[in-house]
C-alpha cells in the first residue's frame, strides 16, 4: 500500500518535471515558439501580451525573450558556450566575439536568398562592414538603420544640459564656450542659492560611475568640434587619429573644472556618486547643469522633474565648444553599429522559420505594431493618415504594467528608424513631431523659441553626414587585451578613470596634471593609436569599395 503510493508520487513528480521540460519547446498548433536571449538588462513581456499575440497571428511565431540578470554579458555567454546550449536567437552584446569564436552562430548570408527584406535591409557596403574574417555575416545590426530621414525632435546624445530657468533668468543669452557656460551657472548660483524645496542648489555635477565616467572624460572631444567617435578624434582632412586626452583643449577643460571645483560650483560628491544617486539628484531639479548622453538620464530624471511640477527645471542641450569659431558636432545622424547585432545560433532547429520571422518583422504592418501598438487602442489615425494619441494612450505608453501586458517592440530585432514605411509617420511616437509638440512644456517652448528653435535638436547644429569611419567606438569597444593596442586602451581607461577626478579636485592643478600625464604615458599609447589608425584606413577602404 505504502509502496504504491510512493510509486504514484514518483510518477507524478516525473510527469510534472517532464511537462515542465515540454513547455520549453511547445508546438501548440501551428504557432512556433522561439527562444531568445538578450545580453542586456531588460523587462520580460507578460504572458498573453496583446501586441505579441497580434504579431504571432500575422507571422505564426512567438519569441520568448530572456534578458541579462545579475551577471555580465560575457559570463552569461561564457556559460552558454561552455555548455554549447544556446537559445534560437541571441543578441550577445559584449559576448558576440566569444560566440563567433566558439562557432555558435550560423552565417546569415548563407540563408538570406529567399528573404529580400533581410538582404536589402542594409546596403552592400554596410553588409561588408559586418563581415567577419571568414567573409560571413553572423549578426544583423538592429540600430541606426534609417528609413527615409531622421525626424527625431529629441537630441538623444551627448550635450551640455542646462535648466531653462537659468537661461530665462539671464535673458536667453548666447552660450557658446566653456567660459560662457560656467559664467552663467556661477552667476545664477550666486543669485539663487536655494532650490524651491529649501535645499541648496547644485550648480554642476559629473557622473563618474564605472563605464558612465564618459561624462567627465569625453567632453574634450566635443569641445574640439569633433563628432562622437568615442575613443579618438579623426581629423577629417588628414584622416589621422588624434588622442584627445592630452590636447591643450583637454588640459584647459580640466583646468576649468578644477577652478570651478574650488569655487564650490561642482558637486563635492561627484566622483563617488552612484548612478542611482545621480539620477535622484537630477530628479529633484537641484542641479543646474551637467554633461551626459540624453538616453542615460532623460527618460527617467526628466520625467520625474515634470511629474513633480518643476516645469522650469527641465533641461535643454547646448553645443559648447572650447573657443569661438569652432563648429560643434554634438548631433549626429543615427549610427550603424556593426560590432554586433541579432544572431541565430546553431541550436536553432528551424533556421528558415527564424529567417522568415525576421523578414516578417520588417514589414510595414508589423513595424507599426511593434513601435506604435494596436490601432484604436494605443494610437489613432486622423484623416490624413497621421497617427496621434490621446492623453490616456500617452500615459499608458510609459506605464510599466501596461507595457508588459500590451506592447511588444521586439527591440533587439532589426527595425527601421526615422520614418515609418508608410512615409507619413515617424517610426515611433516619441519621434513624431505632432506628438512632441503636444507634450512640450510652455517653459521649454519659450526657451526653444528664444533661440529660434522648434525642437531640442534644433538647439544644436544640424548633423552632417557620417564619415565612413564613424564611429570609432564600434571598434575600440571590441578591443581585447590580446593586442598591445587593446592592452594600452585598457590601461589608459583605468588611469583616466582614477586620475581625472583627482585632477579636478587637486589643490595644485599643474603638478597633478603632470603626474597624471606621467602615469598616462606608461601605457603604450602609440600602439593603441596605430591600431585605431589601421581601422580608420580599413573602413575608408571598405567604404570606397576596395
Amino acid at each position, binding site marked *: 500500500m505504502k509502496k504504491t503510493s510512493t510509486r504514484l508520487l514518483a510518477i507524478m513528480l516525473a510527469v510534472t*518535471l517532464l511537462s*515542465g*521540460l515540454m513547455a*520549453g519547446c511547445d508546438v501548440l498548433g501551428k504557432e512556433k515558439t522561439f527562444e531568445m*536571449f538578450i545580453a*542586456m*538588462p*531588460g*523587462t*520580460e513581456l*507578460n*504572458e498573453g501580451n496583446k501586441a505579441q499575440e497580434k504579431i504571432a497571428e500575422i507571422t505564426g511565431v512567438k519569441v520568448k525573450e*530572456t*534578458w541579462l*540578470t*545579475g551577471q*555580465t*554579458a560575457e559570463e*552569461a555567454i*561564457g*556559460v552558454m558556450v561552455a*555548455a554549447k*546550449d544556446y*537559445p534560437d536567437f541571441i543578441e550577445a*552584446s*559584449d559576448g558576440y566575439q566569444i560566440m563567433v569564436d566558439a562557432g555558435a552562430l550560423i552565417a546569415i548570408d548563407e540563408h538570406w536568398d529567399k528573404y529580400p527584406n533581410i538582404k536589402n535591409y542594409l546596403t552592400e557596403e554596410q553588409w561588408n562592414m559586418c563581415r567577419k574574417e571568414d567573409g560571413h555575416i553572423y549578426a544583423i545590426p538592429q*540600430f541606426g538603420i534609417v528609413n527615409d530621414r531622421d525626424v527625431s525632435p529629441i537630441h*538623444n*546624445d551627448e550635450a551640455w544640459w542646462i535648466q531653462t530657468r537659468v537661461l530665462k533668468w539671464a535673458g536667453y543669452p548666447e552660450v557658446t564656450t566653456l567660459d560662457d557656460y560656467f559664467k552663467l551657472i556661477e552667476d545664477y548660483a550666486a543669485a539663487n542659492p536655494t532650490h524651491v524645496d529649501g535645499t541648496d542648489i547644485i550648480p554642476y555635477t559629473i557622473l563618474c560611475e564605472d*563605464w558612465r565616467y*564618459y561624462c567627465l572624460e569625453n567632453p574634450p572631444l566635443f569641445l574640439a568640434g569633433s563628432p562622437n567617435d568615442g575613443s579618438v578624434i579623426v581629423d577629417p582632412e588628414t584622416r589621422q587619429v588624434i588622442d584627445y586626452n592630452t590636447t591643450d583643449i583637454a588640459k584647459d577643460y580640466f583646468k576649468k573644472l578644477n577652478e570651478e571645483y574650488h569655487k564650490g560650483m561642482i558637486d563635492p560628491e561627484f566622483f563617488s556618486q552612484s*548612478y*542611482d544617486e545621480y*539620477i*535622484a539628484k537630477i530628479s*529633484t531639479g537641484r542641479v543646474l547643469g551637467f554633461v551626459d548622453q540624453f*538616453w*542615460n538620464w*532623460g*527618460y*527617467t*530624471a526628466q*520625467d*520625474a522633474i515634470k*511629474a*513633480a511640477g518643476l516645469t522650469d527645471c527641465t533641461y535643454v542641450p547646448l553645443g559648447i565648444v572650447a573657443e569661438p569659431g569652432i563648429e560643434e558636432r554634438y548631433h549626429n545622424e*543615427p*549610427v550603424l*553599429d556593426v560590432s554586433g547585432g541579432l544572431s541565430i545560433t546553431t541550436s536553432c532547429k528551424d533556421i528558415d522559420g527564424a529567417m522568415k520571422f525576421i523578414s516578417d518583422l520588417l514589414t510595414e504592418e508589423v513595424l507599426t505594431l511593434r513601435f506604435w501598438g494596436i490601432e484604436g487602442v494605443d494610437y489613432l489615425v486622423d484623416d490624413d493618415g497621421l497617427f496621434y494619441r490621446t492623453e490616456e494612450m500617452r500615459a499608458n505608453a510609459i506605464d*510599466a*504594467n501596461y507595457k*508588459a*501586458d500590451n506592447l511588444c517592440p521586439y*527591440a533587439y530585432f532589426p527595425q527601421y*528608424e526615422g520614418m515609418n514605411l508608410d512615409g507619413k509617420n515617424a517610426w515611433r511616437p516619441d519621434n513624431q513631431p505632432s506628438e512632441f509638440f503636444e507634450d512640450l512644456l510652455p517653459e521649454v517652448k519659450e526657451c526653444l523659441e528664444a533661440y529660434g528653435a522648434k525642437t531640442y535638436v534644433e538647439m544644436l547644429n544640424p548633423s552632417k553626414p557620417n564619415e565612413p569611419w564613424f*564611429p570609432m*567606438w*564600434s571598434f575600440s*569597444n571590441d578591443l581585447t587585451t590580446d593586442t598591445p593596442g587593446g592592452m594600452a586602451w585598457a590601461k589608459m*581607461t583605468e588611469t583616466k578613470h582614477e586620475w581625472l577626478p583627482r585632477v579636478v579636485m587637486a589643490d595644485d592643478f599643474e603638478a597633478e596634471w603632470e603626474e597624471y600625464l606621467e602615469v598616462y604615458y606608461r601605457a603604450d599609447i602609440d600602439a593603441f593609436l596605430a591600431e585605431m589608425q589601421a581601422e580608420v584606413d580599413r573602413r575608408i577602404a571598405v567604404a570606397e569599395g576596395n
Partner: protein
Amino acid sequence: MKKPELEVKNDMQNEELEVDTRVFVRRKKGLKRLNPSDVIFVVINTLILSFAVAVTLYPILNTLAVSFNDGLDALRGGIYLLPRKLSFKNYETVFNMNNLLTGARNSVLRTVIASVLHLSVTALLAYVLSVKEFVFRKHVSLFYVLTMYVNAGLIPIFLLFRELGLTNTFAVYIIPGMVAAFNLLVLRTYMSSLPDSLRESAQIDGANHLTIFWKIYAPICKPVFATIALFIAVFHWSSWFDNMIYNPRNRELTTLQYELMKLLSSVTSQTSSGSAYGKSTQSVAITPTSIRAAATIVTSMPIVVLYPFLQRYFITGLTIGGVKE
C-alpha cells in the same frame, strides 16, 4: 511576568516554561537586594540594544516607506519613515509580474522539499558520524569538512550537472548541496553530546541504527532540527544563482528570488564599456527604486513571517564541534 502554568503539553513547552520560571525566580531575588552595578548594567544594556534595534529597523522601515511611495516622486530621494506621496502602484506592478505565481510556487516547493530532504539526509549522516566507535568517522567527517573550502568553479560544475541531466529541471534546486558541512557539524555535535547509553541500551534491545536514529534521536533533536531547517529554508528561499545558471530560460522553473533579481539588476547590471557610446537608440531600462523596494518586501516577507514560529524551538541549545567530537 506570567506565572507558569501547571499543565504541560509537550516537551518543547516544558523547556520554555522552565526558562520562564527561572527568570521569575531570579527577578524576585533581584528585588530583594538591588545591586547598583546590576542596575547600571541593565541600563547600559537596554541603551545599547535599543540603539542596535533602531539602527537595524530604520532602513527596513525606510524600504517599506519607499515601497508605498509614488515611483517618480521617490526618485527625488528624501523619504524617511513615511511615504511622501502614497501609492500602491509599486505593489500592483510587482503582483502583476506574470512569473510571480510560478516563481512563488517553485520557491515554496523547493524550500519545503529541500528543508525536509536535506535535513533528514544530513541528520542521518550526522547520526552515523556521532557513533563514536565507527571506524571511518573521522575520515568521512573530514571528507565533508573539506568541501567547505574546495570549489571547482562554475564551468566544471555546470558541465557535471549537464551530464547528470540536471540542467533545465526542477531537480537542480534539490539534488546538489544536500549535505552542507556546516549543518552536518552542528547536528553531529548535538548528537554526540547525548549520552552514548541512549544508543547502546537500544542496541542491546536489538534495534538497528536506522530505528535508533528515527525513534530515539530524531525526537530528542527536534530543537536543533528546527534551527537547521531554518538555515536550509532561508538558504533555499533566497537562492537565485542556481536558477540563473542552470534554468535561465525556462519560465516554468523560475523562482521568486530570480524574478526579484531581474527587477533589481536592471539598474546595477555590470554593463561594460560597450554601451558607453553605443546602442544609444535604446533608452536604458531601469526599475524605479520604489518598485525594487516593493519587490524586496514581497519576496522576503514569507520567510520573515515564518521565523517567529521557528524561534520558539530555539529554546534548547545547540553547539557546534569539530570533526573529532
